[in-house]
């Protein structure tokens, strides 16, 4: 006599199959990253001969080479300056804009809101030629300002803030107004501190996006000294063909801060993605 598996048991099996599929997808996704790391730890002559999963003779030679023979430290500094500036300005501006659209009544508020909504439907790459012409026109190519300015457009951050402020009970605003708070005090002493999680999450995701940006920094910074890490590592050329170990060492170094930021603030990054998920849809 056979009996049908119980619903709980069926759920168990379903769970295991899902876990297995997720694990396989994770391995598939992570393997190239892993391969880049192990290849960067191989000596130059072994990158195309040693295909073991763990390098036979691991070495940091490629990393040392990158530091000694490229402008990596300067690129790191540039990336840091650019990414931190973008993060601070974007979060500040988006918080103020989101607050104004959500909480204040002023002529043109709806127009401003729909302009912001419309602006994030235009891909940045479609604007890149205009950006280049404008930035070149005002002589800001190869400057921090030139790299940073076009990257300050972040309608999604404004939208997330607006939605956050919209969701707060109006009594908080009214209580603070009765207490004598002005608009800036309301924003910076009541609304934002009430949930720093939103700001932290948006700051981290903005930082990661800025650090990873390639296309605009690649166009705006042609001078090697002004390049960011992502642009700089593509500039490492070798007269004797492709040096996989060195190139991948550069790539690993470029991605390292983002990976560390992600590991440290994993929960916040997930929160930021969730916050903007409904918008990016």
């Amino acid at each position, binding site marked *: 006599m056979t009996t049908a598996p119980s619903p709980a048991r069926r759920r168990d099996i379903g769970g295991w199959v899902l876990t297995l599929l997720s694990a396989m997808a994770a391995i598939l996704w992570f393997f190239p990253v892993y391969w880049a790391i192990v290849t960067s730890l191989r000596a130059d002559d072994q990158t195309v001969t040693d295909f073991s999963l763990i390098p036979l003779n691991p070495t940091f030679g490629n990393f040392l080479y990158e530091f000694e023979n490229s402008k990596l430290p300067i690129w790191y500094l540039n990336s840091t300056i650019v990414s931190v500036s973008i993060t601070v300005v974007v979060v500040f501006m988006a918080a103020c804009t989101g607050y104004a659209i959500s909480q204040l009544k002023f002529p043109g508020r709806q127009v401003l809101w729909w302009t912001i909504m419309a602006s994030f439907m235009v891909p940045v790459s479609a604007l890149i030629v205009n950006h280049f012409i404008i930035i070149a026109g005002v002589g800001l190519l190869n400057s921090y300002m030139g790299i940073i300015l076009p990257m300050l457009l972040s309608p999604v951050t404004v939208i997330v803030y607006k939605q956050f402020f919209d969701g707060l009970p109006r009594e*908080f605003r009214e*209580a603070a107004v009765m207490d004598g708070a002005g608009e800036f005090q309301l924003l910076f002493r009541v609304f934002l501190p009430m949930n720093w999680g939103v700001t932290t999450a948006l700051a981290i995701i903005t930082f990661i996006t800025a650090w990873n940006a390639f296309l605009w920094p690649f166009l705006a910074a042609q001078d090697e000294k002004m390049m960011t890490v992502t642009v700089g590592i593509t500039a490492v050329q070798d007269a004797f063909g492709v040096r996989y170990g060195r190139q991948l060492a550069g790539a690993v170094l470029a991605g390292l801060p983002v990976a560390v930021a992600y590991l440290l603030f994993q929960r916040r990054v997930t929160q930021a993605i969730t916050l903007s998920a409904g918008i990016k849809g």
Partner: protein
Amino acid sequence: MSQVDLSGITKTFGAVEVIRGLDLQVADGSFCALLGPSGCGKSTLLRMIAGLETVTAGHIRIGDREVTQVEPAKRGVAMVFQNYALYPHLTVAQNICFSLSLAGVSRAQQKEHGDKVAKVLQLEALMDRRPAELSGGQRQRVAIGRALVRDPEVFLFDEPLSNLDALLRVQMRLELAKLHNDLKTTMIYVTHDQVEAMTLADKIVVLDKGKISQMGSPLDLYNAPANRFVASFIGSPAMNFLPAKLRWSAGTLQASFPNGASLAIPAPATPAFDGERAGEVGVRPEHMGLSDTGPIRGVALVVERLGNTSYIYLDSPVGPLICEADQAVGIQPGTSVGVTIDPAHCHIFGTDGAAWPVRA
């Protein structure tokens, strides 16, 4: 001086007129309750006094100052919100002292004021906690503390007890009454709960559709409601309304009920009208009795036994009735009973809902 004077206050939202030309004086140091059902405009009126809502027409004076166009923080009023609106990221002490902190008061002075308020409201042990770590009653006290620290001329309460459970509501009601006795500050209190209004206020303003239906002391409103709306709103359980034909006759008003029974109600000698008119006789449950000889018979549907008293819900030929009876009454649901009416405590309402004076 912190008398509140409202004159000709009108508020419209688009085409909807929420408050219609309302005049109200709240005396210095009094406790005034704005009472009415949802949507009657009582919260809007309070918010206009607070300055959180603009006034479409009319003037608001607090003390000897015209404040109609003055911003909320400068009106000398403090407000306690229904959902407390405590800042979740600040401690109790910081919540209480937030207005002082915004005003640039030194930390030492903030602490001094905060401690004083905490002592009045027995919050000393909770000063370092955050709102999420407090019970409903404690949050309510912090919200009151935040208002208290500003030393306002007028306190405004917007249904402050409606989020509390029944027991806590009674406790907080007592605390508010005590606070008013101690402070003697003008308080305006919005509620839809007539028990809160009756127990706390020395003046009740009953609002209906944006107009004052009646105002006066709690007992004035209870004993002499100006209209059917007030009569039905004040008192729990609500007043019974019996449809009747009314005829004035030499110092009495003869009421004939649809079941054929009649009742002679004492009335002024001068008739208010000639002939017969349709109207309603209003009787509170405590002014009805159970007796087999009663003129109206009904079937008991539900018997509520509260311990000190019982309420019998009846279905009768004159409509549903509620009758208060001795707690030991042995009536069971389904029993047919006779109902007596105390003619000395009847209220008469015309078809337009207005009360007719039947007692000289």
